[in-house]
């Protein structure tokens, strides 16, 4: 099965929050709710040896996804064709069990529809061969989308081009996030946790 995910080159990310805005516009996300958020990491260290970076965070498309494992109705599920973790809002009962199970707190509560939502990797766009809106609009060219197991994909090629010690994932607890980050030690040291 493919593992579609986004690879983000943090060496390039300028923290403009453009991906957040593009995501909100494309998916009609209400004020106060997020599917994608850019977090300031740092500054760390002592003056003048300071460093910081920007960390865009969204659903990490975990390969062992706790959200789909706990969902009592199957509303949180994996698409049988793409293997992408999605939410079927029609059968979501709003128990928020998946929000509890997410190790990163990156699921959103749609106050109007009273259901859980999250990043879909813009499945409505990728199904026709387009890129997720955050990838398409990233002004720094820092985001890459594709099957990380497919050497031909943009995401896999971005990872292949990076040094091994520059490739990171968010701290995990057995969930194996498919989303990867590239951050060179010369740019900043990777920091675990929030």
């Amino acid at each position: 099965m493919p593992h579609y995910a986004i690879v983000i080159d943090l060496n390039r990310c300028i923290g403009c929050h453009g991906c957040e805005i593009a995501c909100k516009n494309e998916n009609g996300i209400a004020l106060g709710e997020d599917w994608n958020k850019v977090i300031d990491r740092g500054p760390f260290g002592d003056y003048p040896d300071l460093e910081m970076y920007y960390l865009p965070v969204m659903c990490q498309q975990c390969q062992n996804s706790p959200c789909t494992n706990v969902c009592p109705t199957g509303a949180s599920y994996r698409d049988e064709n793409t293997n992408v973790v999605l939410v079927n809002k029609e059968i979501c009962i709003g128990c928020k069990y998946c929000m509890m199970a997410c190790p990163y707190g990156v699921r959103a509560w749609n106050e109007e529809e009273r259901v859980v939502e999250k990043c879909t990797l813009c499945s409505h766009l990728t199904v026709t061969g387009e890129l997720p809106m955050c990838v398409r609009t990233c002004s720094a060219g820092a985001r890459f989308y594709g099957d990380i197991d497919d050497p031909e994909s943009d995401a896999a090629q971005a990872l292949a081009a990076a040094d091994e010690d520059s490739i990171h994932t968010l701290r995990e607890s057995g969930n194996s996030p498919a989303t990867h980050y590239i951050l060179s030690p010369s740019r900043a040291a990777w920091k675990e946790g929030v």
Partner: protein
Amino acid sequence: MEIQWSLVLFTVLSGMGAWLAACIGIEEFRGKQRKVALPGSILAVVLLAIGGIISVSHLAHPLRVVAALSHPAPGIFLEALLLGILAVVIIIYAVLVAREISPAVRKVLGILMVLLAIAFTFACGSSYMMASRPAWNTILLPLAYLGTACASGTALALAMAAIRKEEEAAIKRAALFTVVGGIVAIITTVAYGAVSGSFESEGTLLILGCVVCGGIVPTVCGALALKRPNDAQMLGVIALICGVIGAISLRALMWIMGTPLDDYFGVEI
């Protein structure tokens, strides 16, 4: 993390009902009809039902709840399944008691009530065991759920035995159950509090509430009732009230301590 009161009350009430049924199930082995058996069974089912209804109120779309039963998965499905089976077993038992028939079957149902009470109250806590919430991801959490439900349920059984004016030997046995329930609550809540770091956090008062109200007071009340069965009604009610407060405290503590591994969006659940 925000306390989910509907889920707190669900497990407190249904857990208490389950352990009331367990006490009745154990007492069935006396082989004699007891005054508590029928009203206690009815009350147990009522508590399970009220707890179940309250839990559904937690859902944003309660009308879609049937979908939860169509997708077997650990957690909510298992809780609902065990609650339903336990309620059916108690109802069948109550019918047999009311008709004063089938003592052998009643004994089997009594054993089932005990086993299901253990399984159900454990399952209610085990639903929250998830690696994403470090303070929840310990087997001591479901054991503490079980322990506090045991203390409040046995205290309710003591209060009922005294109110229904059971014979002294029966009241003393109910008092002994309350002592055991209280000790189980003390051990499990102290263990969970220590492992989850609750004693050194904003949850300190709540964990102390769990241990003192949920465990120590029922234990002391049960021990006093053993010595003074005539005061069992007052002692049972005190043990019951404190047992319920302790059970609520544990569950409220769990929600307060339940922060994600890394909370990037900071969304309140």
